[in-house]
């Protein structure tokens, strides 16, 4: 049974097709990976799912209901939480206040005046950033801010978590702990859809992986299937052959995919890969 279905979604920015007839589903109580080279349309897909971007064509269904026309906040209230690739922490508030805001929003008008710290601090402890609770959110390291965004979602007890590159900024041991946390969250009955460049993490925690390339799903399967899929290898290698600028980034990912070493492409290189179809670069 799938909790989320993305049905023939197309997103065009002028002449650029960011998502091209993408079809995939996210199963309940599982961790699903969404991977692909830069500019493949991963973040745009997230924006479509959460309602920040209207799809040019196609439908999105959540828990069997068509939510394509619903505003952002209504989807969130249905049980959808997300984190952002480009951080969206509330910079002027402390880490704890960030989570308090999320709790207040979730509690709604009636719950808003009943305060209490316990659940907030409990969530901060759970994701492992309680020691940063009193720092301003724009002062904490990236990895912490990403976990903060996760904590913010968790106070709302979402049924589906959309995580956009959650592990970038975490070191190796932190990433391992993070992987365990993800498994726990899924075991509690949450579905997780995760965009991630850390192939170690993706391969170790995901039950199913969708591979996106040029806005289209080119492969779906469990980690082993995806790793051995020739189309997937080509997608990652192909970028480096065709695009001279991208040689560095493309090759690294390809190596990672096969050798299972690393991971995170230096941010500076990400930009140069396929700027024209970069998820963030094009704004509506």
């Amino acid at each position, binding site marked *: 049974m799938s909790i989320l279905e993305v049905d023939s979604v197309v997103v065009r920015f002028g002449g650029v097709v960011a998502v091209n007839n993408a079809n995939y589903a996210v199963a309940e109580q599982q961790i699903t990976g969404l991977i692909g080279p830069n500019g493949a349309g991963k973040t745009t897909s997230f*924006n479509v799912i*959460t309602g*920040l971007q209207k799809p040019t064509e196609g439908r999105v269904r959540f828990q069997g209901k068509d939510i394509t026309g619903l*505003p*952002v*906040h*209504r989807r*969130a209230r249905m049980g*959808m*939480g*997300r984190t*952002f*690739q*480009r*951080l*969206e*922490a*509330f*910079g*002027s*508030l402390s880490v704890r*206040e*960030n989570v*308090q*805001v*999320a709790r*207040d*929003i*979730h509690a709604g008008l009636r719950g*808003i*005046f009943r*305060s209490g710290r316990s659940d907030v601090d409990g969530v901060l402890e759970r994701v492992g950033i309680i020691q940063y609770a009193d720092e*301003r*959110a*724009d002062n904490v*390291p*990236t990895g912490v801010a990403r976990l903060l*965004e996760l904590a*913010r*979602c968790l106070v709302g007890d979402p049924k589906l978590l959309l995580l956009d590159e959650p592990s*970038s*900024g975490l*070191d*190796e041991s932190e990433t391992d702990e993070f992987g365990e946390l993800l498994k726990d969250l899924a075991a509690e009955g949450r579905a997780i859809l995760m965009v991630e460049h850390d192939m170690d993490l993706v391969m170790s925690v995901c039950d199913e992986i969708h591979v996106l390339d040029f806005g289209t799903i080119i492969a779906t399967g469990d980690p082993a299937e995806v790793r051995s899929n020739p189309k997937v290898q080509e997608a990652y290698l192909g970028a480096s052959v065709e695009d001279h600028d991208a040689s560095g980034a493309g090759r690294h990912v390809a190596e990672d995919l096969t050798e299972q070493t*690393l*991971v*995170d492409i*230096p*941010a*500076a290189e*990400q*930009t*140069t890969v396929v*700027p024209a179809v*970069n998820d*963030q*670069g*094009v*704004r*509506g």
Partner: protein
Amino acid sequence: MTSLLAFTVLGLFTGAAYSIAASGLVLTYATTRVFNIAHGAMGMVMAFTFWDLAYRQGIPTPVALFLVLFVIAPAMGWFVQRVMMRGLGEAPVSVSLVVSVGLFVGLIGLAQQVWPPAARTVQPFFGEASISIFGVVVTAHQLITIGLAAVVAGMLYLLLNRTRIGTAMRASVDNHQLLQLYGGNPERVAALSWAIGASLAALAGILLTPVIGLDYFELTLLVINAYAAAMLGRLKSLPMTFVGAMSLGVLQSYAVAYLPSSGQLAGLRAVVPAIFLMVIIIALPQAQLRIGQVKGLVSVPVPSLRRSLLTAVGAVFLALAVTVGLSDANLLLAGTAATYAIVMLSLVLLTGYGGHLSLSQFTFAGVGAVAYIQLGSANLFGVFMAAVIAALVGALVALPVLRLTGLYLALSTLAFAVVMDKLVFQADFAFSTDGFLEAERLSVLGVVITNDTSYVMLMILAFLAVGITVLAVRRGPVGRILIAMRDSPAACGTLGLDQRWFRVALFGASAGIAGLAGALFASMRGTIAAAEFNVLASLPLLLIAVVCGVTSVTGAAFGGILLMLMPVVSSSNPGLAGLVFAVVGFGAVALGRNPNGLASLGFLAGRKVWGRYGDRLPIWTAEDVPPAQTGPSQTDPPQARPEEVTTR
């Protein structure tokens, strides 16, 4: 039939002038993301400059025209962009708009100072020369204007589509950083588009002067017409802007022809652009939430309840000591300062915490004053109802803009203020056409407070009560959500907050506070004038609030006193009235980037003196403007990188 044609020609003429102004506005906004609310003011100053050169100094008209359009105006646009507006494109709208409002007010002050009020006329080009088309007399000036609009449209098309720099400009509209990556120079593009923009504003101003006269305000408010036209193209599309401008011009001309010129609806003709704007705004589709990190603003510390109560008690004693010895005239001034300070508290809530801007706060105060008087119950209930009515009007203003972003909300308050000035406040149920209203003094629990000293103390108490309430809101959950909405609307949305209604409520609450101030003010003064609540009063209010510190109650208190002193200084030195305006305006241009204002410097000094906290109070400056956003290259701060290097 002939008259319809004649009015159409007239409409096409004004539409052509609007389209010239509007295309300049679109060009500057699209390339730099800074909305130049002073666009009309720049055109106004240039029209005066043209008058000065051609009529006062006797320079031949073509030479004067050339100097203004191709030397002075571009230089001014270039200067304004490089010196005043640089880097504001990535700043919150509440910051970038304040700076351009500062320029707006500063230019009016400057013009009044350099060219004191006097009768000046500018002749149409080629005098009364005209031709007859289908029996309609078309003047040479009209023909030239319509022709120039076409030329401007053509030139802009060629510039944007056929030249290298034009391509860079279009690229800049889409993405600043990518342009930089590909070797373009966004700074040069920005300066050039502002130079062209200023030149177009100047041309529009000069072309319209023979019709609407050399007037500081009418020419300055041209920005509303231009904005209304540009909204049809969502501040992006030049062709749609031309369509918008022409339709607006023709509509306005028909309004002059066929709407009543006397009676209750006489003012309707003057507000056609504002109404046109409202209709377009309502028709626009839902804006998408902006994604992109804005760095949190550094805010001044929020005092605890105990601390704010103690400060309030201290303030009461101070106020008692000061007011006791004051003359009646000075007492009224103290009461006026308290009124202004309460209105500024409404901005603390709206702008300081919520990050939204209102250019019509005095209009809401006016609504409160009128409601207090017309309800006829000069007691606390009447004051309360006046505040509620002002709040409802405020919510009503925010409602059409529900689906759009903050910039549009701020700009529609400007249009709203103009509608109120020219239409509603002149109606019989408000100030009527003579512009004055008598108010009864307030009675509290059956006791009329006739003694001025007591009444002023009451107003100061009201200020403190509102201030303590605003601070309490800030400390609580609602305050946290306000800050969160300012920092990241997208995150608030994905956490499940319906920001549209929250924003309407915020706007309503803020208008309510202003309305309360208006009611108290009316009761104190006994006679109030419509002119005290017009749009040109609201702008200095906003500027002084920001300069003094729009994030703190202390800032509001100082701001109230400063704003009260403004007319005092100008009336004792009438020759310097314009200069006072200019100082306030350009002061805001210089200081508007730090919404914590001078008050935060006061807090800093206070801390140093007490030596209790060693921390320095950081102040948000241009350097702290979030680094040019977009592109994943900025997403991962440096600390993410070293590990990657080692894994390599």
